[in-house]
């Protein structure tokens, strides 16, 4: 009896198992084949380098000789004995704290104007979006340098009013602000998203409010802004991450130095110089990981606070 049960159990599973897996392979092989390029890219070009950089951040590595294990040395040096790290951190935080809210406010302002309905809306929308496409490019950064240089466009305009302006980009007090203005000028992408968000707000809420006698100002603060918080939140996260990662403008405008007097030494620029200027790959990797942790912490904090100020409809 027991033997019979055993054989009857064994026979189907013993036969079925290989044919089952063969079936899976035959059915799904094309799918996996199509996925293969992505797999290679994801593991070879994304996950691999990320893990490698984590390892390298605990080493001294100059690209020419093999990495030497350094334990926590790089991280300890960063926080205890590197004034440039502190300077770059300060520059980057100032940039993020000023450029992101100002850019979002500007983008929202323009979106509100466009949303009032006007002729040629799609043309304005495209024109305003253009800087976002061009903004991160080298060409625009070079253009920016011309505009804010000692004999640049800004000073030429000021000169017509009899004001002799300084060289904005070579003055450590103003150089970072030229970069903040450049960031604000690239308001197109959050503006498009704000515009889409504004379109989602039902018109009859404004009608109900206007029957109640609510002014446009009150309608903005009590209806538009709260209804828009999911979009504000999204834009804030995206723009903050972008701002932390900002590199090209400071690289071009300061000529790669982060000068004058480290006033435009963005974190990523410092990281770049450590890696490809001084070939301190281990230290640069550690810098990259600290930035990752800062951005992750910032994002996590935003999500935690979001439940107190972001209103989702349904």
């Amino acid at each position: 009896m027991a033997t019979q049960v055993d054989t009857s159990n064994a026979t189907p599973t013993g036969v079925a198992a290989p044919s089952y897996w063969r079936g899976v392979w035959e059915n799904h092989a094309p799918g996996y084949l199509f996925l293969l390029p992505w797999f290679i890219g994801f593991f070879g070009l994304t996950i691999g380098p990320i893990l490698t950089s984590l390892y390298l951040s605990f080493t001294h590595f100059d690209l020419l000789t093999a990495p030497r294990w350094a334990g926590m040395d790089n991280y300890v040096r960063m926080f205890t004995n590197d004034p440039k790290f502190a300077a770059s951190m300060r520059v980057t935080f100032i940039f993020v704290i000023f450029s992101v809210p100002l850019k979002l406010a500007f983008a929202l302002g323009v979106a509100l104007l466009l949303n009032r309905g006007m002729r040629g809306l799609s043309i304005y929308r495209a024109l305003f979006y253009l800087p976002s496409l061009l903004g991160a490019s080298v060409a625009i950064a070079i253009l920016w340098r011309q505009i804010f240089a000692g004999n640049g466009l800004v000073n030429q305009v000021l000169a017509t009013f009899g004001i002799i302006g300084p060289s904005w980009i070579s003055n450590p007090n103003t150089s970072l602000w030229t970069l903040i203005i450049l960031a604000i000028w690239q308001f197109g992408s959050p503006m498009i998203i704000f515009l889409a968000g504004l379109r989602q707000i039902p018109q009859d809420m404004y009608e109900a409010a206007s029957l109640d006698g609510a002014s446009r100002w009150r309608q903005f603060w009590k209806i538009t802004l709260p209804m828009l918080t999911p979009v504000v939140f999204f834009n804030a996260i995206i723009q903050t991450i972008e701002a932390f990662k900002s590199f090209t403008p400071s690289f071009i405008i300061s000529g790669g130095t982060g000068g004058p007097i480290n006033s435009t030494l963005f974190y990523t620029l410092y990281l770049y110089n450590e890696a490809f200027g001084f070939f301190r790959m281990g230290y640069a990797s550690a810098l990259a990981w600290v930035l990752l942790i800062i951005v992750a912490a910032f994002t996590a904090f935003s999500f935690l606070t979001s439940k107190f100020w972001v209103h989702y409809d349904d």
Partner: protein
Amino acid sequence: MATSIELRRIQKAYGDVHVIHGVDLTIDPGEFTVFVGPSGCGKSTLLRMIAGLEPITGGDLLIDGQRMNEVPAAKRGIAMVFQSYALYPHMSVYQNLAFGLETARMPKPEIEKRVQRAAEILKIEPLLKRKPKQLSGGQRQRVAIGRAIVREPKIFLFDEPLSNLDAELRVAMRVEIAKLHNDLGNTMIYVTHDQVEAMTMADKIVVLRAGIIEQAGAPLELYNNPRNLFVAGFIGSPKMNFLAASVENGMVKAAGTSLALGRDVTGATTLGIRPEHISISEGSGIKFADVRVDLVENLGGQTVLYATTSDGQSITVVLEGQRRVDLGSTVSLYVDPAKAHVFNAEGTTIT
């Protein structure tokens, strides 16, 4: 106490497109007026012009005898309930109710008093702390009405307020709005495309089509004496039967049968008889046509017959109670000549 509204030659145009063509209407103080008509007839536009949400192109709007055309919406003493409710999703029910009062800078204790009172009237006190998304459709509807009540307006406007509710709730809310009108006694204007809502709630029905008033009057007045084919067909459910007719020897001839109405029917081209005014029992009126029964609906309280006349016209008959009628059988119809309507070629009632 209550407020009167008067429309004088009110017009509305969007560019070259005229949607309201000179509407004259007087709404008496405390009256419950229903604007009814098919989609696109201009009923909502008319309401929005009264509210001040749409500029008036021509004519005069008078509230309590004062011209209001240029007075902003907030200063007309009006509250409006929207079809979508237009509740603010990020505010609690309390905040939604209080919004208009806070806008008017009313002192907090007074706001609280008014919100409490409105919540009592509408039985939404337990919901005051909730957000709109935590409410059912009927509860949202109550909050929307509450938002109008707290402002203690002179005039309430309702723009298809029940069309987002299911059938059962719609009937219940209909009764509540009617009660609310009885309790508050305000002048109210209610827009709907549902003639049953119009019949059950209105003191005065205004039937609109393509931007003109077809007829305005008490519900039963419109039911009994429709001015034209459109009103006759729009008011009443099921719809009035219309049969192609001619006049012979002073009698109306339709479906192969001549009918003596005992009045002048010169020029009649259409005979109209309501389904509920036709019988199949001898002795309840004079004999009309013989028809073939195509379909029988047993509703319990009523039996509805869908039949075809000998010359191929459709006719609906509503019989009281439960009647046994075989499909495909031929029955004789009897009508009361006093309840038959005749219309001329222009669709106007011949009286």
